[in-house]
C-alpha cells in the first residue's frame, strides 16, 4: 500500500531496508544467540544519519518527525526486533528532551544523539512500579544547585550502552504522581551504576539492565521542564513513542510474514508447493491483511502526532495495541506455516515470535493501552 | 562511414525474437516493432542472427583493408615465477602448436627473465620452433614497465600474427598494456581458440556474464591478434625430448628496462600447498560448514586428495577462511577436474565461479539447494558425517 511518504522518507526507508537486508539479517541469529549488544550495527546506523531523522535540523538532525522514526524502526525490525530496539530505545530516551528540553539542553544533547555518537535510554519502570507508574520509589533531593538521586530503575532498555538517560524520580513524595520530575543523567556520573544484564525470552540483542542510583549528584540544570512535571512528561513521551513500538511490531510481523510466504512457496508436501493449499493461502491472506491494517493505523497515528495534534493518547494506544497483537498473531502463524521447522532455532521464524511478545508488554501492556483508550473515549463522551 | 544498425520496419513482424536474443537488453517493442536503444547496443549482431525476417541490418565498416601479410607466427608468452615456467605456458604451447599448424607458421615461445638459458631445453621439448629470450636482471620478477616495453619492442620487430598469454594476474596486467601500445586486438580469458583458415583469423571464444553467455570474437583488421587464455582449459603440450628450437636472444638498452614501480617483496601465503587456479581438485566449504573449526574437516579431505581448499563468499565474509580462497563472482573463477562443494547452497554468484568444472560434487542437507541443479553427483545429507567418511575412503584408495 502506498503511504505517500515524502521523497526524503522514501530515501530513508530504502536506506534502512538496505542496512536491514545487507547488514542486520546476516547477524540477527548471532546476536540473538550471544545476547551481545550489536555495536557494529549501531555504528552503521550512526554513519547513515538515520539516528537523526526525527531530530530538528538546527540540532544536526534531518528535521523529520515520528513518521520518519516509524519508517526506520519498521524496516530495521523486519530484520531483527532486538537490534532495532537499540535505535528505537534511543528514540524513547530522546523524546522527553525534544518535547520538554530547554534550548540549552537541546543544544547540549541532541547533536550527538542525531549523529549516533551517543545512544539514549528512558528510565521509569521499577520493581514495584510497572503498569502503576505512579508508585515509583526513586527520589531526587535538591541540594543547592544539584539533585541527589537514589533508587533503582528496572528493565531499562539500552542501559549500560546508552550515554544519555532520561530518569523519572520523585522530588516530593507527598504529592504522589504530581511530585515526580524528569532528569537527564549522563553515563559516568558518580553514583550511577548498572545491574547485570537480564536474560530475556526475545529481543535478546537489546541490552536490558537495572540502573542504580546511590547518592548520584547531578546538576540542577539537568532537570527537564520543572519539578512536578515528571509524570506528565512520561505520559506525553509515551503518547509520542507508542507509534514507534507499534512500528517495531509491524516490522517484526512483516519480517515473519515474508519468511512464511517464501517458505510456503518453496516447501513441497504431497508433491506440490504448500502454497497451493487453500488452508495455507487463507492463513497468508489473513496475516497480510492484518499487517497492512496495523501499518495503516500506525502511519495515520504517527502523522497525527507530527501534525501537532493536542491529544494523541487514545490513537497512540490504539496503534500500539493493535499492532502488537497483530505481531503476536502473525508471528505465531508464521511458525505454524513452517511446521516443525518453525519450532527449530536453526530457522528464523521462532525468533520473530519471541521478539513479538515484548511489544504487547513494554511501554504499557496491552491491558494498559485498553485502559487508556477506554478512559479517553469516556472522557470524550462526557465533553459532548 | 561509421558502423550502424538499422531495423527495416516493413519487414519487422514484432515477433520479439530479437528482444530475447539481445544479451544487452537493448531492444524493446514499441507499436509492435523492434526499437534499438543505442545507449545499450554494442553492435554485437546477435539480433541479426536471431531475426527470421531479415529485418535487421548491421553494417560494420572495417575501414580500409590493411595489409596484414607482414605478420606471421604464433607467439606464446611464457610466464615464469622465480625462474620456474608456469604450467599455463605449456598449455598455451600445446594449443599454439595446433593454431600454428592450421596457419602453416611457426610456434614461438617468448620468455623474459634473468638466467633463463636453462629453460631453453624445456621449451624446445614442449614444441617451440623459435624461442625468443630476453635476459636481464631487471626482468627477474614481473614488473609492468620493463615487461611491457620489451614485449612491445619484440612484437614491433618480429610482427607475430597471434600472441597468447595466460589469463593470470600477470598476463592480464601485461598484455592489456601491450595491446594498447601496439594497437592490437585483445580478447580476455578465452576458453576456446580456433582458426578461420580462409580468412586466417583467430576465433576466440570466451564466457561473459559469468559464463551465462559465450561470445566468439575476432580481430579482423589489426595485428597481432592477442588473447589471454584461461588456465586448465587447454591440454599441456606433449614432451618430445628430440626437439630443438632456434634461439633468438635480444638485448635492449637500459632505458627499456627501467621500471617506475619497484617490487619490494614477494610473499607467499596460501595456507594449503595447492594454488586454486592450478588445482585439479578443489574441495570447497560454505555457510553449512558452520565455522572455522568446520574447515578443519574440509582441509582434511583436501589433503587426502592433494586438492586446494576453496570457500564460498559466506564463509569468507564470516572470516572462516581468507579471501584468497574465495571462489565466485567476487573471488576466483576456477575450472578444476573435480569440484567438491560442501555445505554450499549454490548462489548464482558462487556458481559463476565454478560451473565450468568438469565434475561437480555437491553435499548439502537441503534437498532444494540450487547447487544440486548443476552438480554431477549430489548427496543430500550431513556434511559433518559425509566429509570425514569420504576422507577415510579416499585415504584408503590412495593409501595415505
Amino acid at each position: 500500500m502506498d503511504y505517500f511518504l515524502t521523497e526524503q522518507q522514501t530515501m530513508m526507508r530504502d536506506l534502512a531496508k538496505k542496512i536491514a537486508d545487507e547488514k542486520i539479517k546476516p547477524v540477527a541469529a548471532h546476536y540473538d544467540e550471544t545476547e551481545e549488544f550489536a555495536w557494529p550495527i549501531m555504528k552503521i546506523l550512526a554513519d547513515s544519519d538515520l539516528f537523526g531523522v526525527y531530530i530538528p535540523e538546527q540540532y544536526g538532525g534531518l528535521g523529520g518527525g515520528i513518521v520518519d522514526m516509524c519508517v526506520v524502526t519498521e524496516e530495521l525490525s523486519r530484520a531483527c526486533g532486538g537490534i532495532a530496539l537499540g535505535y528505537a530505545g534511543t528514540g524513547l530516551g530522546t523524546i522527553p528532551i525534544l518535547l520538554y528540553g530547554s534550548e540549552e539542553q537541546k543544544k547540549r544533547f541532541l547533536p550527538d544523539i542525531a549523529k549516533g555518537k551517543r545512544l539514549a535510554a528512558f528510565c521509569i519502570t521499577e520493581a514495584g512500579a510497572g503498569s502503576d507508574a505512579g508508585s515509583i520509589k526513586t527520589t531526587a533531593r535538591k541540594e543547592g544547585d544539584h539533585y541527589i538521586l537514589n533508587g533503582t530503575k528496572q528493565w531499562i532498555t539500552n542501559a549500560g550502552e546508552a550515554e544519555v538517560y532520561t530518569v523519572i524520580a520523585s522530588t516530593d513524595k507527598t504529592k504522589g504522581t504530581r511530585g515526580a520530575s524528569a532528569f537527564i543523567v549522563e553515563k559516568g556520573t558518580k553514583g550511577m551504576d548498572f545491574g547485570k544484564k537480564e536474560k530475556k525470552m526475545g529481543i535478546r540483542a537489546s541490552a536490558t539492565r537495572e540502573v542504580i542510583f546511590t547518592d548520584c549528584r547531578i546538576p540542577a540544570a539537568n532537570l527537564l521542564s520543572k519539578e512536578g512535571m515528571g509524570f506528565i512528561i512520561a505520559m506525553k513521551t509515551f503518547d509520542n513513542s507508542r507509534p514507534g513500538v507499534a512500528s517495531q511490531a509491524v516490522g517484526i510481523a512483516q519480517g515473519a510474514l515474508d519468511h512464511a510466504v517464501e517458505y510456503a512457496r518453496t516447501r513441497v508436501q504431497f508433491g506440490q508447493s504448500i502454497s497451493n493449499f487453500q488452508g495455507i493461502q487463507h492463513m497468508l491472506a489473513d496475516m497480510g491483511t492484518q499487517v497492512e491494517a496495523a501499518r495503516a493505523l500506525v502511519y495515520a497515528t504517527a502523522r497525527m502526532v507530527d501534525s501537532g495534534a493536542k491529544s494523541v493518547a487514545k490513537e497512540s494506544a490504539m496503534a500500539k495495541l493493535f499492532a502488537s497483537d497483530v505481531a503476536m498473531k502473525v508471528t505465531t502463524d508464521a511458525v505454524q506455516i513452517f511446521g516443525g521447522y518453525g519450532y527449530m532455532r536453526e530457522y528464523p521464524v521462532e525468533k520473530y515470535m519471541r521478539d513479538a511478545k515484548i511489544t504487547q508488554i513494554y511501554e504499557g501492556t496491552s491491558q494498559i493501552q485498553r485502559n487508556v483508550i477506554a478512559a479517553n473515549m469516556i472522557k470524550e463522551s462526557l465533553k459532548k | 562511414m561509421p558502423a550502424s544498425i538499422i531495423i527495416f520496419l516493413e519487414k519487422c513482424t514484432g515477433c520479439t525474437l530479437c528482444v530475447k536474443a539481445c544479451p544487452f537488453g537493448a531492444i524493446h517493442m514499441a507499436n509492435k516493432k523492434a526499437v534499438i536503444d543505442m545507449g545499450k547496443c554494442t553492435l554485437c549482431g546477435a539480433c541479426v542472427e536471431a531475426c527470421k525476417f531479415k529485418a535487421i541490418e548491421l553494417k560494420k565498416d572495417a575501414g580500409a583493408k590493411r595489409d596484414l601479410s607482414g605478420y606471421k607466427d604464433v607467439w606464446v608468452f611464457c610466464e615464469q615465477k622465480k625462474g620456474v615456467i608456469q604450467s599455463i605456458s605449456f598449455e598455451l604451447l600445446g594449443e599454439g602448436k595446433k593454431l600454428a599448424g592450421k596457419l602453416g607458421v611457426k610456434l614461438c615461445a617468448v620468455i623474459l627473465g634473468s638466467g633463463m638459458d636453462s629453460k631453453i631445453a624445456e621449451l624446445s621439448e614442449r614444441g617451440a620452433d623459435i624461442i625468443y629470450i630476453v635476459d636481464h636482471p631487471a626482468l627477474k620478477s614481473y614488473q609492468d614497465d620493463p615487461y611491457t616495453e620489451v614485449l612491445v619492442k619484440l612484437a614491433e620487430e618480429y610482427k607475430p600474427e597471434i600472441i597468447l598469454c595466460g589469463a593470470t594476474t600477470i598476463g592480464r596486467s601485461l598484455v592489456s598494456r601491450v595491446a594498447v601500445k601496439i594497437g592490437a586486438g585483445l580478447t580476455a580469458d578465452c576458453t576456446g581458440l580456433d582458426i578461420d583458415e580462409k580468412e586466417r583469423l583467430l576465433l576466440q571464444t570466451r564466457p561473459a556474464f559469468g559464463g551465462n553467455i559465450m561470445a566468439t570474437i575476432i580481430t579482423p583488421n589489426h595485428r597481432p591478434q592477442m588473447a589471454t587464455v584461461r588456465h586448465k582449459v587447454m591440454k599441456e603440450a606433449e614432451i618430445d625430448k628430440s626437439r630443438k628450437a632456434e634461439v633468438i636472444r635480444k638485448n635492449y638498452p637500459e632505458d627499456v628496462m627501467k621500471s617506475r614501480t619497484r617490487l619490494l617483496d614477494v610473499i607467499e601465503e596460501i595456507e594449503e600447498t595447492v594454488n586454486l587456479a592450478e588445482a585439479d581438485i578443489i574441495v570447497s566449504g560454505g555457510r553449512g560448514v558452520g565455522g572455522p573449526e568446520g574447515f578443519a574437516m574440509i582441509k582434511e579431505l583436501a589433503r587426502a586428495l592433494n586438492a586446494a581448499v576453496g570457500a564460498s563468499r559466506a564463509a569468507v565474509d564470516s572470516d572462516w577462511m581468507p579471501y584468497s580462497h574465495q571462489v565466485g563472482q567476487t573471488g576466483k573463477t576456477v575450472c578444476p577436474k573435480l569440484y567438491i562443494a560442501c555445505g554450499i547452497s549454490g548462489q548464482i554468484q558462487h556458481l559463476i565461479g565454478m560451473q565450468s568444472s568438469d565434475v561437480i560434487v555437491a553435499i548439502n542437507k537441503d534437498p532444494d539447494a540450487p547447487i544440486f541443479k548443476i552438480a554431477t553427483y549430489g548427496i543430500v545429507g550431513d556434511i559433518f558425517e559425509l566429509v570425514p567418511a569420504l576422507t577415510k575412503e579416499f585415504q584408503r584408495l590412495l593409501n595415505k
Partner: protein
Amino acid sequence: MHIIVCIKQVPNTTDVRIDPVTNTLIREGVESVINPFDAYAIEEAVRIKERFSGKVTVLTMGPPQAETALREALSLGCDEAILVSDRKFAGSDTWATSYTLSAAIKKIGAFDVIVCGKQASDGDTAQVGPGISAHLDIPQVTYVKKIVEISATAAKVERMTEEGYDIVETPLPCLFTVVKEINTPRLPSLKGMMRAKSAKPLKWTAEDIGAEPGSLGLDGSPTRVVKIFTPAPRKGGEMLEGDTTDVSKELVELLKDIAIH
C-alpha cells in the same frame, strides 16, 4: 589529493536468469547496479581523500541511464561526477573504452591516483584499467589488496598474486585496480543521498573530450564479436542415496579416476 575513480554500470548478476525454454538471458526486471568491484574502488578513493583531504571525481562511460550509478557514487562520498556518453561509443571494446576514458581523464586535468575495480562483472576482462594506464603512460599496480602507505608523491601497496602478494612501491600519479579484500565499502548516508540527488553530473560527448573519431566505438575497436550463444545449461546429474558409508563408497568409486590422476 585528486583521486579519479572509474566505474561501470552493469546488470545485477543476482537477477540474471536463463530462460529454461529459449536458453537465453532474461533481461526483464534486471536492475542496473555499480559493478561490484567498483564499489571497492569508490570506497578506497574516498578513504584516500579522507586521509589527505582533496576530492574524488567519479567517471563513467555509458548510456544516459548510467547517471544513476554516478549518483550512487556521489552518495558514497565522491565529490564530482562525469558521464561520458555518446552514440559514437557504441560497440567499444576494451581498447576503445580505455581510450575514451583516458581522453576524458586528460580533459579532467591533474590527478594523483586513478582507482578502478579489478574487472567488471559483465565482461570480466580486467583489461580496461591497465588500458587506461597505458594510454596515459602512467605506472600501474593491478589487483591491489592493500594500500600500506601513501604520500603526496608515492605509495606502497600489496598486489595480490596467485600465491600470495607482492609488495610494490610506485610513484604518483599512478593507476590502481583493486580487489575485494581491500576494504568493506560503506553504505551511503542519508545526507549523502540527498546531496547526490540534487547534484548534476557533468555530461561529456566524444567532441567534448577531444577524441579521435576513428578511435571510438566499433570503429576504434580492433576486436569484433561475431557470434553470441548460450552454452548448453549444465544439467543436474545423479543424486546418490543411502547411508553415509554406502554413499561415500559409491562416490569414491565414481571419482576414482580423477582422484588417482
